[in-house]
């Protein structure tokens, strides 16, 4: 028997408003009602459709990113119901309220019975995939139908394995769909023929039915490609029958997937290491923007994308060093190729320039000096041709002042640390984020160890902190955005100078003060929290703010390059959604807070 209060609500909620009275009553009678309290994490692991009756619920991605807020009449749980794939999202109640749970059986029954309701939830699911970023511009995500061949090669289950093998040979495929009464009942692969027929010495007349893999995992033609990849890796299978409205349509294999992912970073990096000339490397590097766009389509979060872009710069550098050694002969002494700044922090963006140097085992005089001058020039010019522009500040190994022995570097850092004039700090802070790309790790470790043993000096930290305080987040007293010109572009927010950099600067001060070896900002924050140097709450806030800013910049860059422009850090806040604007302001507020804590800690009067 229905509760009128419940069915009345459903009658006003899309898509149930299309149901007739009796059907609404059935739906209402299938629900379970739960009262959720603010702060409670909603259990979303069960196969239930969640219908929000009252209250507010915040949905966070596994990256702790706020995706959306659910309110009256909103749904959740349809992804698991429709695809069987759980997400790692977290649903947290922000304001007390009532939740309706519709069990899976009732949900599916309704879906099969009412096409419109099925379509509604399919669309909702489609939109959810894009919820990750609400974005401007056109970007599509590869779907199964984009790559699955519309070629159905099937055999009846009662046929013999020999007939199956002949069909596979004839059609040049590694797998077959097995059907009976026009329904998919299993699949048969090369491997099944080998391990279940030949290895077991079964006769050629064995029916396919007996050796096939019954009830295989399948994927809908309209599903996204990454879902297919997820299914394949989750169930460790290489073949997925593709279904179109419940009828088999074709087969998708891991090879198909790999072929479609030619611009995947793994392939590009492999390609880079196979090149024998700068021309070849330059050609490879032209795929970087394309790769970035593909990463964007695949919803790769910004920090991962930054990591991938850095890995490619590393690969280009490593290959150029190899090519230089082929051209100029082996190095006369042990060396370390160093990188600084964002490349060192592994959060490089697509518009980054070069920041590198050479650390040498021996003094760079005579032949040694000449050799490394040639090598550095070769590599830096090579990188420039590959789109990683020359450093305007001349922080490059091609600069003779930046090719030094351990003693030379150690002395240089010691001077920066012991006599920290504001000007010296401003110029040198980038060097303190340092990583070895190629060459000797031992040599590099010796230098890093030497530096970190010195950095806990209050005068140095004071200057470093004051430098980090010179720029502030672009938030006015009244919490409005402060826009600025950068010369050639329009007004906007500089996401790097007024955001990301402020966080890396703050985190660097803490890391150097505490001798922390990590260079990546997220990893530094994790260490600072683990070592009890900063409150976990604060490091998490900073890390979140960093992610949000990096994500906005990444999205902006993708948008720019997809429009054929150069990637710019200047963001017009007018293009942001309400949620993004809110997140951005929150992030700036976090920066303000972190700056004042740092000031309190490292800038006290001496």
């Amino acid at each position, binding site marked *: 028997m229905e*509760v009128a209060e419940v069915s009345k609500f459903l009658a006003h909620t899309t898509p149930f408003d299309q149901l007739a009275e009796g059907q609404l009553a059935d739906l209402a009678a*299938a629900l379970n*009602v739960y009262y959720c309290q603010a702060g409670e994490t909603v259990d979303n692991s069960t196969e239930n459709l969640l219908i929000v009756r009252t209250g507010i619920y915040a949905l966070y991605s596994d990256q702790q990113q706020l995706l959306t807020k659910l309110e009256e009449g909103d749904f959740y749980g349809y992804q698991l119901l429709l695809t069987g794939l759980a997400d790692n999202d977290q649903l947290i109640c922000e304001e007390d309220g009532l939740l309706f*749970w519709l069990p899976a059986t009732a949900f599916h029954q309704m879906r099969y019975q009412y096409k419109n309701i099925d379509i509604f939830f399919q669309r909702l699911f489609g939109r959810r995939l894009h919820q990750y970023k609400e974005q401007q511009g056109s970007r599509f995500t590869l779907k199964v139908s984009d790559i699955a061949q519309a070629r159905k090669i099937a055999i009846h289950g009662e046929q013999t394995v020999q007939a199956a093998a002949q069909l596979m040979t004839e059609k040049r495929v590694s797998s077959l769909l097995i059907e009976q009464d026009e329904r998919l009942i299993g699949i048969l692969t090369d491997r099944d023929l080998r391990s279940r027929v030949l290895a077991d010495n079964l006769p050629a007349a064995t029916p396919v039915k007996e050796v096939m893999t019954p009830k295989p995992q399948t994927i809908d033609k309209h599903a996204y490609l990454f879902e297919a990849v997820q299914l394949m890796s989750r169930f460790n299978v290489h073949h997925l029958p593709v279904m179109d409205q419940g009828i088999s349509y074709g087969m998708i294999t891991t090879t198909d997937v790999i072929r479609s992912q030619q611009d995947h970073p793994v392939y590009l990096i492999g390609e880079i290491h196979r090149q024998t000339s700068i021309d070849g490397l330059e050609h490879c590097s032209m795929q970087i923007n394309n790769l970035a766009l593909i990463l964007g389509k695949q919803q790769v979060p910004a920090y991962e994308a930054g990591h991938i872009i850095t890995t490619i710069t590393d690969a280009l550098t490593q290959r150029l060093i190899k090519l230089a050694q082929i051209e100029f002969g082996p190095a006369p002494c042990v060396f370390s190729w160093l990188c600084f700044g964002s490349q060192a922090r592994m959060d490089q963006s697509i518009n980054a320039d070069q920041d590198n140097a050479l650390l040498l085992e021996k003094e760079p005089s005579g032949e040694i000096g000449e050799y490394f001058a040639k090598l550095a020039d070769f590599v830096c010019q090579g990188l420039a041709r590959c789109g990683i522009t020359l450093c305007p500040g001349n922080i490059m190994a091609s600069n003779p002042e930046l090719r030094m022995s351990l003693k030379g570097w150690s002395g240089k850092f010691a001077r920066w640390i012991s006599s920290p004039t504001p000007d010296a700090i401003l110029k040198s802070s980038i060097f303190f984020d340092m990583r070895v790309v190629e060459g000797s790790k031992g040599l590099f470790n010796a230098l890093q160890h030497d530096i970190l043993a010195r950095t806990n000096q209050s005068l140095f930290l004071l200057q470093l902190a004051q430098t980090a305080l010179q720029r502030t987040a672009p938030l006015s007293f009244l919490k409005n955005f402060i826009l600025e010109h950068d010369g050639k572009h329009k007004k906007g927010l500089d996401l790097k100078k007024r955001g990301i950099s402020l966080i890396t600067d703050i985190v660097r001060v803490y890391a150097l003060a505490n001798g922390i070896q990590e260079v990546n900002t997220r990893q530094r924050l994790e260490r600072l929290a683990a070592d009890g140097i900063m409150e976990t709450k604060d490091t998490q806030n900073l890390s979140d703010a960093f992610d949000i800013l990096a994500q906005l910049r990444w999205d902006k860059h993708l948008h720019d390059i997809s429009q054929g422009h150069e990637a710019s850090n200047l963001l017009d806040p007018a293009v942001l959604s309400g949620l993004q604007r809110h997140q951005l302001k929150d992030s700036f507020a976090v920066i303000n807070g972190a700056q004042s804590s740092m000031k309190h800690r490292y800038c006290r009067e001496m």
Partner: protein
Amino acid sequence: MFGWLQKNPELYAEILTFNQVALPSADTPARECRYLVLDLELTGLNAKQDHIVSIGWLPIVEQHIRLSEARHYLIEAPVSVGQSAIYHGLHDSDLKDAQELADVLQFLLKQYPGYIFVAHHCRLDRAFLQIAFQRHFGKAPRMLFLDTLNIEYHRLQKLGSRLATDALRLPQCLARHHLPVSAQHHALEDAYGCALLFLSQLKKSHSAITLGDLQLHSR
């Protein structure tokens, strides 16, 4: 009375069977118990003279209201519903689908042994049910009742709120808990409202609250 027993030994046995299922002990965490939230519509307030017009109920298991088990029964009137018809919006003509009270009560006994009963201002509901069981079954079952009205009173007292007249009526309670307020004087709608209120009360009390605590608060 004995003559009655001989006539209805089966019904009497139902009561005994119901009583055999142990109720949770007083130290059981309240959130783990099973509840049957119910509401009666009556022809008057005197349990000895007046009659049950309708019964609505829904169970709560693991803090979830199971709407699949929501029930609403109109009860066959032994006499005309008469003057109180305006009060609960039912007329004799509506009662033609009505059930016999004994059948409804028998179903209740079968389905919900071991459940704790919950009602808003439960005293009246309990008195009517007890008399009905006495009449039809020869004995009232052992029923444990919680009262959302008294629980609410206790809660507000503890918060130090000043209580306006009517503050403890079900619609006012629901509004206070920001819960949807449904049509009044329909046994199932009111039982649903009471169930929502009870879920909210469970959440608003400390997480380890026991059945015994709620029994105290129900007084």
